[in-house]
């Protein structure tokens, strides 16, 4: 396990630190407020419910035929000259990519944005093999310069403000300190253009893979994705197995939902649809195109009817932008590749609940994420399910969630058993409440997780039943006088 993944477990200290950091809070607050407003405007003239229903239906239809569609995608891509590889986990995927690079004697890799490559920590892996991997999306480039990880799946450097970025670029690349965003952007363009010309291999993600036509769709604003997939002589696309859709027309609602939900744009600057390597007479484009299909826990999610909905996700980030927890603590506090609500329902499957034990409970269950999700993933329901899995210790009932039962504690189990018994028998109930009211002075002032953020509850001197009884006696007595 990498250092990064190890760090997932230290959730609470990071949350504390983030809450104290007014810079982080300001940066996120400002950005998320902006994004929420833009999304709302972008859907103003739309039958949003109809569109979300369609988006959900398209994704569900794809999942219902997932193995067949993956085979169809593979067959079509292969026919068109793309080489398709399969990886059961991130390490296998890294290995495949390294082998392709080594077979071509490639030393320099330029990367378009890909969350799956973050998930499998590809850059570090390649670095170890002596292959330089450079991010070219501006946000990812900045995050890489700072030796950090993305704090948002769409806007990786959202945790930094202009001054911080100016200082970073000054220190690492020698640009002048400046608050002029146009200047900073132009400098990055210049630095990266050189890299594009030198790169041996381009690695990108995929937004939608169309089975029917064997087409990889990439959505972006900067043009770095197009450069990555066009300039080097070899392009390797890497994606989770769930990204496939059945038909080309299925892309239309997903595209309409994705860009509007993510940033409030009616479309991104580029929609890049790749169906094969450069043909004989063509003058540019890669000679070789590869697709690496990564499972990494997705096929286990697929085993469970309820959790399956997680796989509908189109990675728009809207659930983060609208989450009262994410907007306050920011992306790094989660310590996972995918932060926010989608991270909370996805990461436990990728890493195991034992390593992500605090994520499903880091939610107020306010429901905002489920309301904005463009493909109607019932995120709050899935969070509750994962909370249940975390304390589910029944070894007889198999669970698809690895690390389930991690939060089960003997004392807590005993307490709940007692609670159940007490509520099932009137005698036990009276005895129990009498004990609680008369011994209430003995209650400790620290109650673990409860009192970490709240004051302890105070038990009343009389139970409700007792008060009712006394009330009845009094009025009976009163009636007779």
């Amino acid at each position, binding site marked *: 396990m990498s250092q990064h993944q190890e760090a997932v477990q230290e959730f609470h200290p990071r949350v504390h630190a983030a809450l104290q950091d007014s810079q982080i809070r300001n940066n996120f607050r400002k950005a998320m407020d902006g994004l929420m407003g833009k999304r709302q405007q972008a859907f103003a003239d739309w039958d949003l419910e109809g569109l979300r229903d369609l988006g959900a*239906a398209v994704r569900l239809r794809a999942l219902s035929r997932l193995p067949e569609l993956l085979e169809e995608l593979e067959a079509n891509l292969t026919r068109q000259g793309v080489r398709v590889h399969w990886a059961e986990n991130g390490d296998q995927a890294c290995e495949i990519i390294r082998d392709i690079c080594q077979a071509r004697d490639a030393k320099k890799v330029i990367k378009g944005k890909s969350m799956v490559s973050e998930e499998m920590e590809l850059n570090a892996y390649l670095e170890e093999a002596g292959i330089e991997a450079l991010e070219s999306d501006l946000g990812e480039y900045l995050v890489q310069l700072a030796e950090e990880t993305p704090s948002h799946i769409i806007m*990786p450097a959202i945790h930094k403000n202009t001054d911080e970025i100016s200082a970073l670029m000054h220190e690492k690349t020698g640009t002048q300190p400046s608050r002029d965003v146009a200047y900073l*952007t132009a400098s990055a363009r210049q630095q990266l253009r050189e890299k594009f*010309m030198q790169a041996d291999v381009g690695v990108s993600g995929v937004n939608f893979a169309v089975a029917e036509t064997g087409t990889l769709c990439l959505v972006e604003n900067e043009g770095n994705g197009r450069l990555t997939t066009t300039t080097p002589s070899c392009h390797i696309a890497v994606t989770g197995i769930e990204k496939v859709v059945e038909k080309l027309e299925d892309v239309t609602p997903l595209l309409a939902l994705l860009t509007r939900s993510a940033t409030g744009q009616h*479309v991104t600057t580029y929609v890049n649809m790749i*169906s094969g390597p450069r043909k004989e007479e063509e003058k540019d484009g890669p000679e070789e195109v590869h697709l690496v299909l990564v499972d990494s826990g997705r096929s286990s999610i697929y085993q469970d009817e309820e959790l399956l909905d997680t796989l509908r996700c189109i990675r728009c980030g809207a659930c983060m932008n609208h989450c009262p927890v994410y907007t306050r603590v920011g992306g790094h506090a989660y310590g996972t590749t995918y932060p926010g609500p989608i991270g909370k329902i996805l990461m436990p499957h990728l890493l195991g609940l034992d390593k992500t034990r605090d994520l499903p409970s880091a939610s107020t269950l306010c429901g905002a994420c489920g309301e904005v999700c463009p493909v109607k993933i019932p995120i709050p329901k899935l969070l509750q399910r994962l909370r249940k899995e975390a304390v589910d210790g029944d070894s007889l009932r198999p669970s698809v969630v690895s690390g389930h039962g991690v939060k089960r504690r003997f004392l807590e189990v005993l307490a709940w058993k007692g609670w159940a018994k007490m509520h099932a028998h009137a005698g036990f109930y009276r005895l129990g409440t009498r004990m609680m009211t008369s011994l209430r002075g003995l209650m400790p002032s620290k109650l673990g997780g409860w009192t970490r953020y709240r004051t302890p509850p105070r038990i009343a001197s009389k139970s409700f039943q007792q008060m009712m009884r006394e009330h009845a006696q009094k009025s009976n007595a009163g009636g007779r006088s």
Partner: protein
Amino acid sequence: MNQARSNILRRLRAGRKASFALPRSDFAPVRDRDWSAAEKLDLFQQKIESVHGEVHRVPAQQWVPELLRLLAEKQLSNLLVSPERKPGQELREQWHGDLPELLAYDQPIENWKSELFNQVDASLTTCRGAIAETGSLILWPDTQEPRLMTLVPPVHFVLLEADQIYATFHEALSTQGWVNQGLPTNALLISGPSKTADIEQTLAYGVHGPAELVVLVLE
């Protein structure tokens, strides 16, 4: 890695629940629009201008003088244009001495990468139509107008015929029969110049691709 393939497919097949409730895919929200040609043109223009694209409407016969005017105004010293396509031929016919130099993408990128990246000011291409709802141009790069032609030069001019504007992406791909025809190596929607908001959500143009996208609509 064939082992991985069979393992993954086996797990998916074994785990699939029989009870997949499949709601109907009703495409009405992304399909049904009843806009006139004039409305579509107006909307296209409004949408692409809202993301910093530039639109000039010109009578079909007069695009060359308009282009010349823009080249001079933007002080561009050369223009990459396909000599094989009709616009490139028309342009060459009307060309004379002191105008910007006309360049051709007539060799594989490997032979002139540095020149393309560093010395070309602008390009001119055709397109396969546009989408009103999103202000998008549809391009299928080919041997005459290769992919990087629309990406590397800082200014990209596009000729669009006014009657080639579709209401939605869905309409464009079904009317043009993309699936039956088979997709090219690379198909593109281009909606404005290259941009980023990665520095504190402040928009900046031309981060990796062109900083200016200029559409000449031929009416």
